[in-house]
């Protein structure tokens, strides 16, 4: 999925984070890492989700807490990465269910 619609990116990110950290309504700027809600796998699950869903590649240079600290920050990070990679990245196939 590659989209340029910032609201759509934000809602997709919000849905994933809400389902991952078991919270009902997450504020746009609520700090995930101060919330005490995230578990030990959350960071890599989020990284994998963003790469898969938005066709971006997250590397060492992107390891900055400011990039992923909230829904707004993550959406803005995705927008920046997508803009940089859009031309070179093919869309990811839809997720499949496996037994």
């Amino acid at each position, binding site marked *: 999925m590659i989209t340029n619609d910032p609201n759509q990116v934000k809602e997709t990110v919000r849905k*994933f984070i809400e*389902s*991952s950290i*078991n919270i*009902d309504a997450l504020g746009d700027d609520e700090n995930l890492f101060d919330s005490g809600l995230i*578990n*030990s*796998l959350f*960071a*890599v*699950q*989020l*990284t*994998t*989700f963003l*790469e*898969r869903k938005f066709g971006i590649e997250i*590397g*060492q240079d992107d*390891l*900055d*807490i400011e990039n992923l600290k909230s829904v707004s920050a993550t959406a803005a990070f995705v927008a920046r990465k997508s803009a940089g990679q859009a031309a070179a990245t093919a869309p990811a196939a839809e*997720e*499949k269910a*496996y*037994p």
Partner: protein
Amino acid sequence: MNMFLTEEQRQRYAEFQEFAAANVAPFAGEWDRAQEIPESAVSQLSRAGYLGASTPSEYGGRGWDVVTFGLLNEALGRSDSAFAGILTVQSMVSAILVKWGTAEQRSRWLPPLAKGQTIAAFALTEPGAGSDIQSIATEFRPNGRNDGLILNGEKKWITSGQRAGVFLVFGKLDQKPLACLVPRESDGFEIEPINDLMGFRAAGLAQLRFHEVPVPAANLVGKPGFALSHVAPVGLQYGRISTACSSLGLLRACFEESTDCAVSRKVGGQRVGDLGMIQSLIAEMGANLEAAGLLCWSACRAEDNHIPETFTKTFIAKYFTSRAAVQAASDAVQIHGASGCHESSPVARFYRGAKISEIIEGTTQVHEVVLGKGFVHDALRRQRSRKRPATP
């Protein structure tokens, strides 16, 4: 698992089985007794390209998919889980460098790791920090010249530690988790072999001591603050996949040895395989083998597809398969009777080795906590969505 494999994966699996049957299985008992795998055996693993199984070809690896990597681990684990342990650790460090290494680190380290010219170790566990990785006490501090760090601390139970040429060491810099590559020849770095383990005896475990060890800034992997949240989990994911699939191999070995014994061993003139009690043990073993194979395939496939569910699927595969291997090894000894209690029988080694798979890459209990919490969390989410009023 076999029914879901591609033709290429099937052919590779046959190649891995041949390799293990010729180069590993006949010597595994001897290596276990000597508590050492000879360099010549590791060289064979390197020459076959297996230590770079999942490393991209641009760095000298084979670039195989994760299902194929799982099959390689299964084939090696079928013969010797200690031997498979070399591949486990090499893949953990390589996967981290592929994901979080700088371009310079990938170019410098991945080709020798893929070719087996350098053996790697993953140095996370400490005498006082096992599953609770947040409490690691190893410390880095700036060297005062702005071009590197000084490392102090201790690590324990480090697989391949006796042999490794480079160690990915986890510690803290001003309380921020940090990972650095530390070459074996570094000043102030001591390596003490750990022998006499219950199983996994040839895996070359070691205790490491760092006393004012200089580490160049170029060896820092990831950034300070991200070593435990982002860097280590990538390696541990590969470690769990490898351990789950290696345990699947051990489970298969127990099943094959048990069924062979059931048709050849006689008690009171009757084949033991004709006894209902033995059939019960074999039935459970065979069913667990089938289930474990599917769980491992599902985890590997999810990793190949790079979906977030891959982490949970891998936890499930490792949890189930390692426990099933322990049960199968115990039952295999039971089926063999007294001969299974003697070191001349491979099932005695399987029995000792199986238990280790329940400890490494996260204990069974850690897996239960993570999975149990996750399943309760999913139920709460379903409950909340049912209660939420429908949108008009």
